[in-house]
């Protein structure tokens, strides 16, 4: 796996005047990984990327690429290529000139450049369009040209700053798989920035979730989704029902939470919080909409039951989103797979919801992602 060049951020701080854009980031990215930074707008993702590519000097800490400290090495000397948030294609150059710009500055001949451009144009499925100007391309085509241009520089590390954000949904999904394919083909390290969790989860080997300059969690998509380290990650990545309360009892890796409105709820303590949670602490319990289900006629003994009334129901193709109201006006969302029949939950009906405690997590109370 680790044939490529790794990137390490060590105690990285970046400040703009008094404003701290990145706070003590420690990240180890393996060579050949597809690594994503995921976070809301303005949390410092671009700032980290600029520090890696050399446009920003860290206020403190180090950036290592392939084990070498990059301090004092300019962007044009680093083995990185950045795909900019706005793509930054050169508007006055033709597509093929854009793609082979990195060869031009090294003094490659026009014939060589033409040849390489044709190869890359084939790869991005834009054969024969090399003589267009960037302004004559569609959004998705520009996107692919930007990727080709970066790949043409043969970087060890490709940095991508939300490259798909400007595309419509269909194209975005298509480009996701395409990017992933390209990455597996060329085998270099990709550092990918996005505020779209779907993108991060489907493409990445590892994800770092950021909140206001702080990296809350680094892990695989599964870890981040199923075992969020902080309430922020739990609420930012995917949808979650949150229940607040105090820890009532701890037994092994599980805890029983005395919630404010819903009574006692059991959940798995998230790995990051093991040993940090004590009886009586303020805590938050998260359970995914798809982990909830209405109980049938018989209630399993070891499962918690949450009584709730159906407020509304939305059809979403492969599933139904059911919005319910629990005790004390507590809002709850449940997701039911669409199996071709009418859902059991019709508007106004009273249901008992239950879940498997292993599919819910509890952790010390903290800040949620504001949405």
């Amino acid at each position, binding site marked *: 796996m680790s044939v490529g060049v790794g990137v390490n951020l060590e105690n990285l701080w970046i400040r703009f005047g008094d404003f701290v854009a990145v706070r003590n980031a420690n990240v180890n990215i393996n060579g050949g990984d597809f690594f994503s930074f995921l976070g809301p707008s303005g949390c410092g993702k671009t700032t980290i990327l600029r520090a890696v*590519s*050399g*446009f920003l000097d860290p206020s403190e800490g180090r950036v290592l690429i392939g084990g070498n400290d990059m301090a004092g090495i*300019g*962007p*044009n000397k680093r083995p*990185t*290529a*950045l795909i*900019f948030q*706005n793509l*930054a*294609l*050169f*508007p*006055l150059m033709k597509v093929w000139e854009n793609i082979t*710009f*990195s060869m*031009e*500055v*090294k003094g490659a001949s026009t014939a060589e450049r033409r040849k390489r451009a044709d190869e890359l144009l084939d790869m991005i499925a834009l054969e024969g369009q090399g003589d267009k100007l960037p302004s*004559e391309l569609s959004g998705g085509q520009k996107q692919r040209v930007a990727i080709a*241009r*970066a790949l043409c*520089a043969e970087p060890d590390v490709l940095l991508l700053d939300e490259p798909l954000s400007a595309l419509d949904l269909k194209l975005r999904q298509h480009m996701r798989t395409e990017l992933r394919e390209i990455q597996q083909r060329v085998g270099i390290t990709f550092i990918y920035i996005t505020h779209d969790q779907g993108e991060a989860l489907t493409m990445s080997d590892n994800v770092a979730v950021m909140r206001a300059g702080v990296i809350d969690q680094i892990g695989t998509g599964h870890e981040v989704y199923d075992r969020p380290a902080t309430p922020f990650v739990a609420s930012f990545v995917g949808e979650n029902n949150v229940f607040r309360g105090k820890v009532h009892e701890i037994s092994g890796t599980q805890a029983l939470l005395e919630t404010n409105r819903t009574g006692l709820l059991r959940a798995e303590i998230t790995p990051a919080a093991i040993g940090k949670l004590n009886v009586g602490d303020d805590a938050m319990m998260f359970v995914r909409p798809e982990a909830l289900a209405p109980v049938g006629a018989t209630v399993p003994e070891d499962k918690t039951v949450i009584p709730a009334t159906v407020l509304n129901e939305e059809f979403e193709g492969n599933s139904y989103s059911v919005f319910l109201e629990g005790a004390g006006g507590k809002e709850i969302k449940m997701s039911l797979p669409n199996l071709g029949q009418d859902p059991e939950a019709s508007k106004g009906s009273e249901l008992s919801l239950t879940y498997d405690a292993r599919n819910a997590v509890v952790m010390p109370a903290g800040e949620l992602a504001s949405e």
Partner: protein
Amino acid sequence: MKSSFIGRVALVAYLVIFFGYLLGPLFVMSMTAFNSSAFPSISPWACYTYEWFDVLFKDERILNGIRNSVIIGIGTVILSVSMGLAAALVLTQVWPKFRSTYYTIIIAPILIPGVVLGISTLVFWDRVSNFLGPSTEAFLHNGIFLTVLGQSTFIASYAMLVFVARLQRFDPGLTEAALDLGATHTQAFRKILLPFMRPAIASAAVLAFLASFENYNTTTFTFGNYPTLTIELAQKVRYGINPSISALAFIIVMLTIFAALANEAYRRNKQRNEDARLKGVPRKAGRVLPSFLTGNPAAIIFVLLSFVVITMFWTAQSYDPGECKARVLAEKQALAAERIEALRQQRFQQRLEAAHSGVDIFGRSTVDPTVTEAPAAPESNGAFGGVFAPTNLNSTAPAAEPESNPGGAFGGVFAPTNLQGTDGN
């Protein structure tokens, strides 16, 4: 309906008045270049002639002025475009808090009167050469050097304004992208920023050249031994002008029109090629016109106007207004004779009346010499008409075009020749 009609009429009237006001003087002046009358005028139209172009191209001072103006213009373009570009680039780099102050300082020369800039340039470089010693004097007291420096002080500011406007639309991300792809800073500048600035550089260069070419205020203090065209023209006007100035104006106007048309034709052609390329169909030539001309009115006008000018050149070789001039001369002499005759009649009448009314001896004696003398000279002139006049002409304006003096028939009586006479002296 009605109001829109009135509005349209008003608009057309406005446009006519506006363009008349704007272009009328140029048009009239251009016309005067083809009138053989010695003073630039169109209303007593004498003869259609190209002779003023000959006069113009034989006028060493004007030609020398044009040469100096062009040299100084080129120097000013080089200096002020590079200074303006540097200033504009610094503006984007400079610490934001200092930016507005910097901007004010840089554009201040535009607000300072050109006269002041001229004087201060002269004084400043004189001090510098004093300081550096006499060996630098030849260079620092050189009119071309001083004029280029003096003009560039404010023309560079104009250039900077052009560059700043363009730079504001530049995405600095492009430079970063170039660096990221391995370009050095120089390469990023040369391959990314400079091509982006090219249109602005072209317009700043044209602007700088024109501003330099037409500058008088600053140049008048700095030109030394290298008078520019404006300086020469101003000096000429002081001693009276002839239509060779109009000929120069006509040439300049034509060059401007040709440049504008060529530019427009080129732009349209490029645009149409682009459109055709995007649609993927090659441009077809029209049924009659070659492809460059189809749907390109500017190009058509350009070609037509070129034909007109070429025809003018061609006819100018063989065209001889001599006959016409002789006729005009004769007409004028006839007219003069008529007037003189009338005058004599009048005087005669007066004398008769005076005699009749019995004016005292004192009064009569004052009138008498004038009356007796005045008719005497014109009479002979009128009598010998065709024979006498040419000699008369040659003696009044020997330095000016001898063969081009139909107005000379008015001899010493009328203003234009008077002027020309002085001019010749």
